[in-house]
Each structure stands twice: as C-alpha cells, then as structure tokens.
C-alpha cells in the first residue's frame, strides 16, 4: 500500500514539475506572439508589425553582412578543426589533453573581456573589415566544435580507415575529404550548426568592435517601435529555433539510424 501511494505521489510530482516547466517555456512565447500581432489596440490583430520589419532600412544589408560573416566563420572553423582533430585521433593522442584544455579557454574567458582586448590586438588589416568578426567567432565556437568533432571521432576506427585508404594510394587531402569527413558526418554537421547558431545571434563582439550586423541592427531598430521590435524578436526566435530544432531533432535521428545500420 505504501509503495502504491508513493508511486502515485511521485508520478504526480514529476508530472507537476514537467507541466510547470512547459508553462514557463511556452507562456512568455505565447504572450509575446499575441503582443506582436496587435494592431492599434489590444483586441485587433494583424500582421502589421511583421510587415514593418521589412520596411526598415538596413534589413537586407545587415542580414547580408551576417550571412557573409557566418559563412566565413563556418568554413574557417571546419578547415582548422577537422584536420586537427583527425590528427589528434590518428597519431597525436598524447596532445589531446593539451588541445582539450586550450580549446575550452574561450568558454571560460568572458567574451566582453576578449572584445576589450581585440580592439587593440589583431593584425591591423583585419580591423578594416567586418570579416574580422568571423575569426573571433571561430575562437568562441571552438569549445563546442572541438567537442562535437572529438565525440564523433571517438567511436570510429579512424586508424583502420586511414591505413586502408593509404594502401589504396589515396592522398591525405583525399582521405580527409572522402574518407574521414563522410564517416563523421553527423558531428561535422553538429560543429557546423553550432557555429552557424552562434554567428547568427552573436551580439557582444559585433557591438563592442563597432560593426553593424543583423543582431546589432535588431537592437537599434528595437528602440523605435515596441510592437515592431516584438515582432522582430518573435520572428527571429522562431526562425533560429526552427533551424536549430530541425537540425538537432532530425540530425540525431539520422545519426541513430546510421548507427543501427552498422
């Protein structure tokens, strides 16, 4: 009897916790969505404020800048990290601990502090282009991309793959592109999307290094029209979530089915 009672009580408690957290998750979202659809008064609703977003000057330009910065950051990130982590797993095992420590540092050091130093550091030709942000984004994405790739490679017999490919006469470039990368595709995708998510929403470095990107533009136009700003916020949240959620949910599905096939 006691056991039955305690299970009922337990189920009640866990359901309660899950319900309350679902409320905390969705209520602000629902409230903000309703607010962003208001037109003139609390009872009239339309997409008026969403149209306002596209009428603001700078929407396209700043989105374009952010896409450029993001693209370069993603390419640089994969170009540096995939070969390095591959090497660490094939023949540089004794350096893994060292790289693990130096790649986690950007997570520990506050980005505000990094931005303060970056103002006067960095090669001067980089200060003249918004693409300097891409280089900084590679650094702050490194803790995540290193771990994603490291986890992906840990379960794979990379040495066997490489030995087989070498025996068949493949070059290192060929091995990286057509053997290693496809075999760890889910974690390459994870590293890629983490960098994309981070670069699309990054505000601190862009603001403190005085560049205009999409997030700083959002911050500037938000001061003019609270309804429009809410529409912009809800819109960009939904967009980012859709992107990330599609990836994490279906990405892990794919990874799992790949595992099952093996």
């Amino acid at each position: 009897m006691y056991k039955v009672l305690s299970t009922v009580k337990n189920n009640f408690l866990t359901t309660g916790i899950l319900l309350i957290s679902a409320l905390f998750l969705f209520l602000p979202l629902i409230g903000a969505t309703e607010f962003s659809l208001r037109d003139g008064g609390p009872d009239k609703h339309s997409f008026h404020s969403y149209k306002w977003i596209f009428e603001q000057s700078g929407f396209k330009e700043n989105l374009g800048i952010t896409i450029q910065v993001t693209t370069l950051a993603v390419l640089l990130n994969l170009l540096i990290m995939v070969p390095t982590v591959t090497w660490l797993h094939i023949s540089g095992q004794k350096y893994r601990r060292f790289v693990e420590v130096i790649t986690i540092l950007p997570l520990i050091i506050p980005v505000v502090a990094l931005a303060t130093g970056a103002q006067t550091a960095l090669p001067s030709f980089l200060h003249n282009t918004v693409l300097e942000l891409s280089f900084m984004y590679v650094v702050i994405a490194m803790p995540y991309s290193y771990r994603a790739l490291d986890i992906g490679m840990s379960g794979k017999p990379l040495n066997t793959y490489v030995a087989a490919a070498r025996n068949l006469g493949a070059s290192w470039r060929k091995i990286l592109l057509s053997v290693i990368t496809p075999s760890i595709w889910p974690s390459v995708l994870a590293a890629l999307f983490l960098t994309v998510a981070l670069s699309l929403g990054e505000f601190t470095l862009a603001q403190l290094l005085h560049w205009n990107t999409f997030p700083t533009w959002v911050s500037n136009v938000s001061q003019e029209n609270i309804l429009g700003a809410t529409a912009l916020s809800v819109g960009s949240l939904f967009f980012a979530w859709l992107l990330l959620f599609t990836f994490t949910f279906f990405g892990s599905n794919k990874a799992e089915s790949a595992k099952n096939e093996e």
Partner: protein
Amino acid sequence: MSNTTDFTVVVKGASSSGGALHRLIKQIPIPLIPLLIFLAIFFFWPISEVALNAFKDNDGAYSFANIRLLFQDPYRLAFRNSISLGLISALVGSIFGLLIAIAIEKRGGAKLKKFVASISGVLANTGGVPLAFMFLAAFGPEGLMIKFLKVLGVNLYEWGFTLFSFPGLVIVYSYFQIPIMIIVFSPAVSSLRREWQESAENLGASRFAYWLRVGIPILLPSFLASFLLLFASAFSAFATARAMTVGNITLVPLVIGSLLDGNVTINQANLGYALALGMIVISILAMVPYLIIQSKTSKWQQ
C-alpha cells in the same frame, strides 16, 4: 604571411629568452601549428593586451591606478552586483534544471528525452534582444501574462514587480540557464543506476537513506560543476543584460560596454582593460574548482 610575423612579435613580447623559445617551437608537431597560430592571434593576443594595459595608467606608464579603482565604487558595486547575479541565477537555474532532469529521467520515454534534449540545446543559445523583448511583451504592463494573472486575482505590478530589476533579470536568465543545466546535468542523472536503488532497498534502506547515502554523493560533483558553469554564463552575459536594464543596475559587462562604446573621459582610457582583467580573474577562479571536480570525477568514473 603577415599573420606569422605578427605571431612572432607577440610571442617575443611574452618571453625574453629566445633560445628556449626556439627549442619549444621546434617541439610543436606540425599538424597543431595552424590551430595554435590561430588561437595565438585571435585569443591569446587580445587577452595579453588586456592583462598588459590593465597595469598601465592613461599615459601608458606602468601603474596600479586602474586596478585600485576596481575596489572603489561604482566599480566595486558593479562587481558585487555581477557576482550576486551570477550566483543567484546559477542557484535558480541549477535547482530547477536538476528537478526537471530528474523528472524526465524518471518519467520520460526515449522520445520525450530526445525532445527535451533538442529543445534545451535550442533554448540554451537564446539571448539578447529577442529574449528580452519576448519577456517585456509577455510580462510588460500591457502584456497577456499580466492580464491573465490579473484575471486570477494576482496583480504583480501592484506588488512593485518590474522586469527591469534584479529579480526580473534572474527570471529572464532562467530561460537559458535552466536548459544549460539540463544539458550538462542529465548525463549524471542517467548514470544513476536503477540497480543501486533496488539493492539499497533490498538491504533495507529507506528512499530517504538511499538519496542521502548514494544518490546525493554521486550527483554532487556534477551538480557543483554545472553550478559553476551557470555562474560563469550569467556573470559574463552582456547582450541580454544590455537589453534588459535601463542603466538602473550596474553590472561589470555593461560598464565595460559603455566604456568601449566611447563614453570615455580622458582619465578612463585604460579602465576598461582593468575591469576586463577583473572579469577574467573571477571567471578563472570560478573554473578552478570546476576543473578539479571534473578531473576527480572522470578518474572515479573510469
């Protein structure tokens, strides 16, 4: 090519003995060089710039003037606010995250677990203006939530509630802190084996005794480590804080931000560096126990 020259300049500045340095560089395996050069230019160079300039006065001469300012108001207050914001929001985030992680582990099927993992990964990356405006719209004086609560007979604003306040910031931060906690803490909860509880019960332990003697000691290291991570994330948050405060709460990242935005009087030229160094020191101090706990638990888990 000019990247490499800049790199050597930095390294020379950091170390005075050229011969030893040369030997050290020779030992670095070639495949690691791209990563190391990249981090040297875009991470260690900026950080050393902060560390050096923090100890200079505004004419560039070495002095402790700016460091000494950190221990005086308003900067001392800014540090105190940032540290308590970090601690309180880490406490709130870690406790709720812990409860949710345990509830999901107990109740959840594989589908729910995967859903929560995905949604936490997404929410952990939410912040800045979009997050701030979402809460302002929902909990502002005209917002749906406030009206809804009014119907229930709760008038938050009559109680002096405002989102532009310390508790307001803690609530908004929870929106990304709780998901971070779920992500980093769930593996620890999953590692609690059902067999342990069953064998404890078979040996006559009550549920309370099981948690006191087995559950909590196993979860505690991961909990502390996650707590410190949440502290670091709230302590250094800039974008959300900037969007949520109207100059009414002094936080270190915001002070640095306004110094860098050009609101600088002549006698503050290097103050930003001193403040940034203060943040770095506190973050490192917070991570030292984290690293110790991590290495201890990983040893124990093997």
